[in-house]
Structures are given as structure tokens and as C-alpha cells.
């Protein structure tokens, strides 16, 4: 078991009313799963993803990641945890505009304090693996959307995380590019990486092994949740 959410609640208070963003979410994710989170806009998909990714807090419930109780950890330990095990892929890629492809890939390794020579070889391997060696000195603005997302995924993977969290990774891409990205996810999943993706597309959801549907912050049909 990779992570487990028990009775997660998240809310905001607005005008004296409590509005629930997440309501009683229960979820267990095993290693090697490929989960799609679906639901209409505002249903809490991204919030759920951020909570899993430890970028966002929740108000009630328990969350354990690799048997570590996340809700009791300090900010710093939490950062260490996700730095090591979690990679993010964003809809709008979120590459650092001022850095080249190579430097963008290097970034997470720097934060993990990986030594210089190991860093170089990891970056070279990754460039090779994603077939972007020729683009290593380009800046993000010089790449197409699909290429940028490729770099985004490569960056998420470079520190060999156990879990990839992807928030509508194909949302800004045309269908052909989108398909390539999804194929890549599939392949990664086959290599053993756990993936949780948020998506609007039924078609993309079919790449996953399981789908969670959200509506107004609630799960509506968790298959064997």
C-alpha cells in the first residue's frame, strides 16, 4: 500500500457558511496503480490531487503515505517526503521560463542535494530516454506544447518518484500530442510507477486501471475504495 486517505474533509468558511471542498474522502492506493480522478469543474479533483501531493492541507481526517502519518508531520518533513517520492505534472507544464530544458531537469536533483556527477548522468539518461537530447539547451518558450509537457514529465520522473500526480496533463495539448503523453504514462505505469491523474476525458480515463468520480467534494462511486 502506497497511501491511504481516511475520512478526509476540507472546507472554507464563506459568509458564515461552511463550504466543503472535500467531504469524507476515503481512498487507498496500492503501488503500481493508475488511477483517474474525474468529475465536473469545481468537484474537488485538483484539491484532492493537491492534498495527496501534500501541497495543500486538509481540515479533518487521516492521511498516511508509506505508513507515515502525513497529517502529523511538520512542514519540513512533509517536504522531504514528497521531494523523495512524488512528482508533479501540470496542465500548463509549469517549466521555469528562465532555465533551459537541461537546467529544468536538473532542478529537482539540486533540491534533493544530489551530487554533481550523479546529477549530470541522471540528466543525460533522462534526456536520452525521452528523446530530447537535441533540445537540451533550448528554453521552454522555444518548444511546442507537447514538447514542453514531455519535459514536464521528464522533470517529474528524474528523481525516480514512486508516485506521479498529473493534473489534466493533456488539457493544453492537441489530440495527437495528448495521445502520445497518455501512451507514455501507460508505459511508465507498466514500469511500476504509480500514477494518479485528473482528467475530463473519458478516453484518457480508460488508460487507468480505476476511476474515482467526484461531485461537490464527494466520492460518488468508488470502485472497491
Amino acid at each position, binding site marked *: 500500500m502506497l497511501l491511504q486517505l481516511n475520512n478526509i474533509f476540507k472546507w472554507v468558511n464563506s459568509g458564515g457558511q461552511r463550504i466543503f471542498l472535500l467531504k469524507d474522502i476515503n481512498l487507498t492506493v496500492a503501488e503500481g496503480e493508475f488511477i483517474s480522478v474525474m468529475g465536473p469543474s469545481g468537484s474537488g479533483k485538483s484539491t484532492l490531487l493537491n492534498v495527496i501531493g501534500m501541497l495543500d492541507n486538509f481540515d479533518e481526517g487521516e492521511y498516511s503515505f508509506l505508513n507515515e502519518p502525513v497529517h502529523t508531520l511538520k512542514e519540513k518533513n512533509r517536504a522531504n517526503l514528497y521531494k523523495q517520492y512524488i512528482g508533479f505534472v501540470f496542465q500548463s507544464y509549469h517549466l521555469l521560463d528562465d532555465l533551459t530544458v537541461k537546467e529544468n531537469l536538473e532542478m529537482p536533483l539540486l533540491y*534533493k542535494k544530489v551530487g554533481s556527477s550523479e546529477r549530470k548522468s541522471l540528466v543525460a539518461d533522462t534526456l536520452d530516454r525521452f528523446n530530447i537530447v537535441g533540445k537540451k539547451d533550448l528554453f521552454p518558450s522555444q518548444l511546442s506544447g507537447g514538447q514542453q509537457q514531455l519535459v514536464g514529465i521528464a522533470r517529474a520522473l528524474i528523481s525516480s518518484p514512486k508516485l506521479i500526480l498529473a493534473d489534466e496533463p493533456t488539457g493544453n495539448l492537441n489530440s495527437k500530442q495528448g495521445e502520445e503523453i497518455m501512451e507514455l504514462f501507460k508505459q511508465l505505469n507498466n514500469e511500476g510507477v504509480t500514477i494518479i491523474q485528473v482528467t475530463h476525458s473519458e478516453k484518457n480515463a480508460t488508460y487507468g486501471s480505476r476511476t474515482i468520480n467526484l461531485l461537490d467534494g464527494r466520492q460518488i462511486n468508488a470502485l472497491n475504495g
Partner: protein
Amino acid sequence: MFKNYLKIAWRNLWKNKGYSAINVGGLALGMAVTLIIGLWIQDELSHNSYFKNKDSIAQVFQSQTFNQETGTGPAIPRPLEKVLRDGYADNFKHLVMSSWNISRYLRYKEKSLSKTGNFMQREAPEMLDLKIIKGEKDGLRELNSVMLSESVSHALFGNEDPIGKTLKVNNQYDVMVTAVYEDIPFNNSFNDVEFLMPWDKMIATQEWMKNAEDQWGNNSFQMFVQIADNSTMEKVTEAILNVKKNANEDTAEFNPKIFLFPMKDWYLRGNFENGEQVGGRIKYVWLFGIIGAFVLLLACINFMNLSTARSEKRAKEVGIRKSIGSQRNQLINQFLSESFLVVLFAFIIAVIIVLLSMNGFNDLSKKEISFPWNSTNFWVVLLVFITITALVAGSYPALYLSSFRPVDVLKGTFTSGKYAGLPRKILVVLQFTVSVAFIIGTVIVMQQINYAKNRPVGYDKAGLVQIPTFSQDFEGKYDLMRSEFLNSGAVIEMSASSSPTTQIWSNRSGFDWEGKPEGFQEDLAWTEVTPEYVKSLGMKIVDGRDFSREFATDSNAVLINRTAVKYMGIKDPVGKFLKDDDEEDPGPPLKIIGVVEDMITQSPYEPVKQGVYVFDKHGNSSFYNLRLNPNQSASQNMAIIENVFKEHFPSLPFQYDFVDDEYGEKFAAEERIGTLSGIFTALAILISCLGLFGLTSFVAEQRTKEIGVRKVLGATVFNVWNMLSKDFLKLVIISCFIAIPISYYVMNGWLQDYPYHVILEWWIFAFAVIGSLAITILTVSFQAIKAANANPVKSLRTE
């Protein structure tokens, strides 16, 4: 990692050239000001550091009380030496009697120079630790010896070996050169001691000095000491405080206190008020220190404001970095390294600015400052300086930027919130408060200088030249020279006097007169003059008559000034007598024949001192005062005068001063401060405006869309300009309200130091407010009008 930070920082700087220029430029200006002020302060504080024994050397000072007023000064009586040597020798390592710094003509063969130096006792070179270049350190041992500074020796002897050569002093006596010492550097007391001669030589050649040996009331000498190794200034002062009173009962009524004034205080803390030490130049060290710190702060504020204003641009980067594993302190480090880089750039530019402006600054401040590149301490201080600046400028932006939550900023819904701009506004208010206060301060300093300059001086200082006549050669030549000069056509009137027109060299007391209040202890400025004095200076007689050669009795006549009439409490002074109250040997009574208009001889900021002008019957003149022929140019006149002078005194150098220039010297200190504070104020305003300019352009950019929408809905250029300018004008007005009371308080305090000063008027403050508003409007309008004129179609399409 650090390399990565710098890379990002560099690319960021390069990409936003406009902001970078404002940031780096503003910081560079601020740092340049701080650097130059720092060097100036260092120079001020290192005064007298040439003297190894700086901490144990002191001058013996005396304070005495006349009419409830306590005066303090370095003048002491001769018998004090014997008392201290006999009874208190343990307290001192060295004790040295000294004359004032006086000028003497030194002649070697045909070459004659006028140089200033002191007559001091034998231990002086040892105490001051003079660096001997040639000859012996104990060079004042023999009565007829002289020690010369290197440059004087060079001027007189060129490459000849001066040791053992004979000089003629004032054409009066011969002395032999025993030593040459290194010139005492500019930044030190005794800097103008160009020669040293034995104290005993002065006594031997001057009758009045011999007489002063037992005169406790004749305070005409100086004494320098080095205290014993195991003692302190306080201990010695305690021991000798009442020696004069105890040794001579007659002086007890003036309550004379003898104390040590330590060398380290001479330059910076040399002011005394009612017998208490009350600071001095140190206040300008503080003043400029504060100015430097504020100017730097202004530049740092620019950096903070521009960094945080652009936070929305950096927010995404923060979000991404956090989501790929950066911790907050790593981001703080990143932003701090960025500010470090900017500060480093700014520093390099600042050093270049300082190097380029060094000469100008030295001229203005009358200093010889340079970068002490070879000093390790200097580099340490620079490093600390850069680090502190980077921390001050960078901490707030680093803390602010690194606090963003990735979820907020990556969602793309991030806005800085309603109050995010508040610290920025407070900082702008702080900047303009400082600028407005600087404006007010500078205007008041300038006003005060002008006020004192426009004060009537009581004589006509234009076209008046004075020639010093210390040499023996001038003795008995006055009448001859007067007729020679008058006949030459270059001079229309001439007189001689015992002190220069712009100073008081002598004060007297011990007189009685009709109506003198009981127990009144008078103190009168005393100038001996020839009968033509009033005419040659262009002074005004307000009562009675001028001196005249036609009345033989005028040799015992005096003129007094207007203030003296009031001071002495004489009604109808003309015809009354000043009687010498010395019981043993009274001089003849002096008849007051006239009253002259007050003439400013001392500080133009202080009331004129009560003065007496005495008919000079002994030929005690120290100066010739020449009224130049107004129908010829000054250079023509001076050429003629020089010829006449050379004809009669071929061996003397022709020396002269325009009284105008001498008088102008009195304003030098204040003018320097006025000019410097004017420059620093201009820079402070420039830096603040630079920041404001950056902020407006940022705000205009941020509101491009809003402006587009407004214009589509019918807003005019004026509406938009008004909208963008109003916010900043409000801030500046708030600044004015803070700055006015503060600067009023401070400047009012400053003016109180000057008995003769301007009254603070409301228009000064109004001027500062209007001036700063005008500057703000100019700065803001440039961007505001540009934004308002932009084509709305364009700005709306960019979305």
C-alpha cells in the same frame, strides 16, 4: 545550487533591463553616497592618528569666569609651568611649553620665506614622535637651533644638506638647522608646524615674555603634556584642577580651573560652553553618518518595492520550485543571492562613481581622501557593507516571495490581495519623508548662510588688502611706506593695525570709567591702530570724531564701538576716560574721542564683541591695511604695490590677502555643509524618484487591461492620469506631514547654535511640499500618460 541561483538571477536581471537599471542604478547611487560619506567619516575620526602617543597627549586648558560667564580656552600663564614641574611632575611623562603657531621669515642667503611654526620646549619632538629624516631628534637642545619640516627644508636648501646651515629669522637673529622632520600630514593637528625653535629662544628675544614669567594674569601661552604611563587624563585633571587658584590668590575671583584636554578630542569635540565640553565637529560626523544611512536606506527601499511589486511575475516560479521539492529556506537563499548579486553590481558601479567624483568631493570638503586599498580592515568593512546592504534590501522581498503557497499561485488565480501593497506604500512614505526633510534642511542651511552673509559688516571689505608685517624689517617704516604706497597711485589710503581686520588677537581688562557698575569685570577686544584706520577701512563714525594727526593728544585717545557703549554702560561716552586701574604702574588715562559702527571681526553668526581701537604709539603693527585705488583693476594695483614692496624689502617675500577672501573663510564650514547636504539631498530625491518611476511603470503595466476597459467605456486621458497619479500623490502628502514637524524640530535646534540666525518661516515648508509634489507629478506622469495614451484595442487583445 548557488550557481543555479546566480544563473536565474542573472537571466532575470537581463530580461527585465528597465527594472534592473533602476534597481542597480539606484542602489549604486545610494552606495556611492554611503561610501563617500564613510570615507569622510573615517578621515574625520582618524584625525591625529599620525601621533603614536595620541591617547596620552593632552593640551592644558583653562576655564575662567567673568561676570557669571565661563570662558574656556588653551591660553595659560607662564608661572603655571613651574608649579606643575615642581609639585606634579609624577603625573607627566613630558611637559612642553609652546608659543602659538606664528609666522616667521626664514632667510637663507638670498632666499626668504614666510613660514608658520612653534617655539617649543626641548621634549616636543620626542612627545610628538616626529619622524626625523636628517639630523637629531633632540634638535631643540641648543638655544640657537631650528628644526625644519621636509618641505621647508627643500624649499630653502633644495638638494643641499641643510644640517649645520645657518638661517636668519625675521632678519633679527641666526639659528642653525639641527634636524629635518617628515611633514606632519594634512589630517593632523600641528600640520602647520613647519619649523620648531626652542622656547627659550623666544623668551630671549621678546621682552614681554620675560616679564610674563611671574604674571598669573597673563594668559598668553600654550602647554602640551604627555601623561605618565600609569595615569589617566581624569586623574591628572583632578590633581591639577585648582593649582592656579591655590598658587595665586589674586586670580581666585575668576575661579580658574586648569584641566587636560585630550588630543583625541581636539578635533571632534573642541567646543566648550560654560566650562563644559559640548561636542564640536562630531555633530557633523553624526549628521553625515545619518544622511549616508538614510540615502542607502532609500536605495534599499527601491529594491524592496520593485521586487515585491513584481511578485506576481515571480509567484509562478516560487510555486513550481516548491512543487518540485524546494523548501522555503532554499527559496529565501535564492532570493537573497539574487539581491547579493544586484548589490555586488551596484557596488562596483558605486566604486567607479566614487573614484570619478573623488577629486570634486575633496575640493568641496577640503580633504585629501582616497580609497585605502591596502588596508585589510577596509576590505573587511566593504564586505560587511555589501552584506548588510544585500540583507537590508533583500530580506523583506525574500521572506515575502518565498511565502507564496504553490496551490494558490499555480492555479493562476493568485492576486496579491487587498493589503499586499500596504508595506510598499509605507516604504514610499518613508522615502519621501526623508527626501522632504532633506529638502527642508538644505533650504534652511542655505538661508542661514545667506542671512549671515547679508549682514552689514561695518566696513567696506571690497578692495581692501592686508600685508603682514611681522618681520623686524618693518620697524619704523610705517610713515615711509604709507607715503610710498600713496604716491604709487595704487593705494588711496593706508593704515596699520595690531590684528587683522577679520580677527581679534588681543583682549584687555583692568580699566575704570565713570559709571562703571560695581564689581563689573570687563573684557574688551583690543586693537592698536594708526590714525588712518577708520578711513582706510571705510568704517563709520557715529558719534564724536576720528583720530587725527593734528591733535597731539590723540596718542592717548581711543575709539570704541557701538556695542562697547552699551556694554560699558556709559552715557555720552565722547570725552570720557578709560583709566588703567593698575595700582603700581598705571598707564595714562585714555580719552574716548568717538564711537564707531560695529564691525564684524569674529564669527558672522555671533553678536559683535565690545571693542576698543587704540592709537598705536609703539609701532605694534602686525598688518598694513591698504585701500586700493578703485579706478584701476586689482591686478594693476597689486603689481604696483609689489614693486614698491620689493624696492623696500628686497629680501622678504611679498605676501598679501584680500580682506574679502579672508572674510569669506568665515563661511567656509557652513558653506561646505550647505553644498554637501545640497548634493546629498539631490541624490536622495533622485533615488526616491527612480523608485517611484519604477513603481508607476509597474502599476501602469499591471493595470493595462483595466485602463483599456476604462478607455473603451469613455475615460479620457486626464481621467486615467488622475487615477494613476492620485495614489502616489496621496503618499507624498502624507510624507510631507511627517517630515515637516521632524525637520522643524531638528533645524530649529541647529539654528539655536547660532546667536545670529534666521527665523524659520512657513514658506520654507510650503516650498518643500510644493517642490516634492511637483517632482512626484513629473515622475508619475511620464508613465501615467504613456499608459493613458495606449490604444485600448491593443491592450485588450493581449489577453
